[in-house]
């Protein structure tokens, strides 16, 4: 029996309306590299946040080095030797490498009341040398590459003499050479007895660097295996696993003519040579992992971000879309992924939020409007989408997530778009509203609207779409019809693993 350094058992975490984690476990042995894997929303990051004390578990125990613990902050966890390297770099760009590594621990370099900078640089160089990282300790962080920043984060974590280091998708921004360097450092750390929790989306890399893998799905613990005792397809099965429920009221609709055609759309470093078309009455699903470029493609088509080259053709005519206004005038509508930042206008009322995209049509030529006209437009949406609000003056911020989303979808329905783009239309929405929104989307397609739907939830994509495109690394890597789509197949393409 190998040494178990950390054991989390029976962890349950409830969020309002959602059971984020349900009786989940994780066992970490001393010196092992342990992969934690699952789809978006599987509960990986919630589990890590509980370990670090960012969230408090509703049930369950954490035993660390043989003692039950319950941390209340990442700082406390860190002081006990549990360090996390986040996906987003958390360094201070204007400071140099040494300053960043020892940030908050300047006391140990005090000479009188001043910081002994020389000693700090020396300590930094010793640390970097120990890890075999070649970096100038005087370099200003903002001039470094993402990979180098990640190395600094790792150096900082080890400088705490951490016994457990959590790495959240550490390779997502790295090139192949840099990844190899990272692997070497990981192996090195593990040889010195440091345990590493390795959160990743890339299945192939697990087999390269990890000893064991734990799989999570929809807030449940699925299982733990030694990496050399499991095959890629078996692992994918564990990740996807769930059965399809018939939550999705997809209506069969006759597919009409092409409405929107996108040809060779490219944006350097974001997505590349994207071509597809969508027809009247069709729901076109876009799946892929977070950061694969799905959202970015749609943002470009809608004129939120620019693109470098390519054509957008609406109803057979090429259109130039430079800003969202152009897109709206062409007959596009878009429900954005980030409702808080890009969708709802929290300071405004439910009615103002509903009518905003359509407002120019409510006003007369001089730009004046009648309140009754606005009220009429709002009531029609409130009734057809059954938005629950106490009055039209209620602030949208006071509505539930599902009702907010209905308001935003309603905002676009008023403009009567030919193509409606929905980016994660049901994220963060309770199950009841979710199926309401699914029914709504299906009904819109039945009326002849072309729908493009991005979703990270495989059942939603397969349940709702007529046709599915898989995006990976900014490219469309796979296309299939609804009847040919399987979760395993789509996941395989999304992860970029080899299909067997």
């Amino acid at each position, binding site marked *: 029996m190998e040494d178990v350094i950390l054991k989390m058992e029976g962890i349950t975490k409830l969020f309002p309306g959602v059971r984020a984690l349900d009786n989940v476990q994780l066992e970490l042995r001393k010196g092992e590299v342990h992969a934690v894997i699952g789809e978006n929303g599987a509960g990986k990051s919630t589990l890590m946040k509980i370990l670090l004390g960012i969230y408090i578990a509703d049930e369950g125990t954490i035993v660390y080095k043989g003692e039950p613990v319950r941390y209340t902050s990442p700082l406390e966890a860190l002081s006990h030797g549990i360090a996390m390297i986040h996906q987003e770099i958390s360094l201070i760009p204007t400071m140099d490498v040494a300053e960043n590594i020892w940030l908050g621990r300047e006391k140990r370099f005090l000479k009188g009341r001043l910081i002994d900078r020389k000693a700090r640089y020396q300590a930094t160089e010793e640390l970097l040398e120990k890890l075999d990282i070649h970096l100038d300790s005087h370099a200003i962080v903002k001039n470094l590459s993402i990979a180098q920043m990640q190395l600094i984060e790792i150096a900082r974590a080890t400088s705490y003499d951490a016994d457990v280091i959590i790495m959240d998708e550490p390779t997502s921004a790295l090139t192949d050479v840099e990844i190899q360097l990272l692997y070497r450092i990981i192996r090195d750390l593990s040889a010195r007895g440091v345990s590493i929790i390795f959160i990743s989306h890339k299945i192939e890399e697990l087999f390269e660097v990890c000893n064991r893998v734990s799989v999570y799905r929809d807030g449940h613990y699925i299982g733990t295996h030694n990496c050399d005792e499991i095959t890629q397809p078996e692992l994918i099965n564990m990740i996807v696993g769930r059965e399809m429920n018939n939550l999705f009221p997809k209506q069969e609709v006759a597919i009409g003519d092409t409405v929107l055609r996108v040809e060779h759309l490219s944006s350097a470093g974001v997505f590349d040579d994207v071509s597809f078309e969508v027809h009247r009455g069709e729901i076109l699903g876009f799946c892929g992992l977070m950061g694969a470029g799905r959202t970015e493609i749609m943002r470009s088509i*809608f004129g*939120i971000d620019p693109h470098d080259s390519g054509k957008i053709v609406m109803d057979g005519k090429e259109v130039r879309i430079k*800003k*969202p*206004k152009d*897109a*709206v*005038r062409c007959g596009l509508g*878009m429900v*954005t992924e980030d409702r808080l*930042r*890009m*969708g*709802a*206008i*929290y*300071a*405004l009322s439910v009615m*103002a939020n509903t009518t*905003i*995209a359509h*407002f*120019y049509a*409510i*006003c007369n030529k001089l*730009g*004046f*409007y009648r309140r009754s006209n606005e009220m009429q437009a709002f009531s029609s949406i409130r009734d057809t989408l059954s938005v629950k609000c106490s009055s039209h003056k209620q602030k949208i911020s006071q509505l539930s997530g599902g009702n907010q989303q209905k308001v935003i979808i309603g*905002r676009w329905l008023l*403009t009567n778009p030919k193509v409606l783009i929905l980016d994660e239309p049901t994220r963060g929405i309770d199950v009841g509203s979710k199926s309401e929104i699914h029914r709504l989307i299906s009904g819109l397609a039945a009326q002849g609207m072309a729908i493009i739907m991005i979703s990270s939830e495989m059942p939603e994509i397969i349940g709702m779409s007529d046709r599915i495109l898989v995006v990976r690394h900014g490219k469309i890597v796979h296309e299939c019809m609804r009847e040919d789509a399987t979760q395993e197949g789509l996941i395989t393409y999304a992860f970029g693993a080899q299909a067997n």
Partner: protein
Amino acid sequence: MRSARRQTKVLKGKSIMNTKVKKSESSLISQLLMGNKALFILLALILIMAFASPVFFTSDNLLNVVRQVAYSAVMGAGFTLVLGSGHMDLSIGCMVGFVGVIMGKAMESGLPVPVAILVGIIAGSLCGALNASVITLFDLPPFIVTLATMSVYKGSTYLITKMVPISNLPSSFVFLGQGYIGPIPVPIYIMALMVLVMYILLTRTMFGRHAIAMGGNAEATRVSGIDTKKVRLGVYMTMGVYVAIASVILTARSASAQIAAGQNTEMDAIAAVVIGGTPLSGGSANVLGTLVGCLIVGVVNNSLNLLGADSNWQIIAKGVLILFAIILDVVWTKMYANMAKKKEAAAK
């Protein structure tokens, strides 16, 4: 089990209905209080002064108060739009002087008064357009841009005038600042008109709605198919027009275009707007509140005068007022929220 669940559902439905009834009774008063905090402060002040000074409640004195705030009310009305749309304009004070000397020069060169005023309005809106264009073109924070253009307008005023004020303005122009129509001073008419126009702009037009939406969430507004750059241009140009009208009042009242006219009054405008209940964060705008805010400042100044206080106390009083209004706003909102919570808890 099932029937028990149904029972709780029914109960819940009942309690919701109960709170609704209660709400409509007691919330009318609290809502009235919440929506018109500035107005209640003003009324309280007037009530106190009516007892404290026999002169205060005479029509002469009251008209005097209103006439004195006419200038800042026009500035404040324009600034309500700027703040409501999520922007900032520090240059408006110096813009007043700049537009003033341009009108002065125009009249000096023999242009008829209406044409000179038109020139001033165009100059004001061009200044606003410059502010907006720099902000949009280089994607800069409005605070910094208008801080810079403030200096540009100030320097331009000094250069144009060679530091000599322009006096001997035509009497038909001076009438706009000093004259009366019936018993009421002309600036009050101008003020009323400009506040009304802004009220209509904010509550009845597409431009107003788009501007407020932009103040609430600029990115979401842009994604909703609104050309936020154009809206910004409109906001600053409108502010420029309001500056020009305010400049007419100020220049006509002193019967000369002073080189330092309007300087630092941007702060008064900000104060009035904030006291009036338009949040600094944008997303809502209350121009009537701004007018009340101006009146509060005017009444306090007038009261201190009548009570024989050192005029420097007025400056301190303004500061205290701003703090008082903000603190009251925070405390009141908290109390309101707590009350609602308690009610909810009681209903449960």
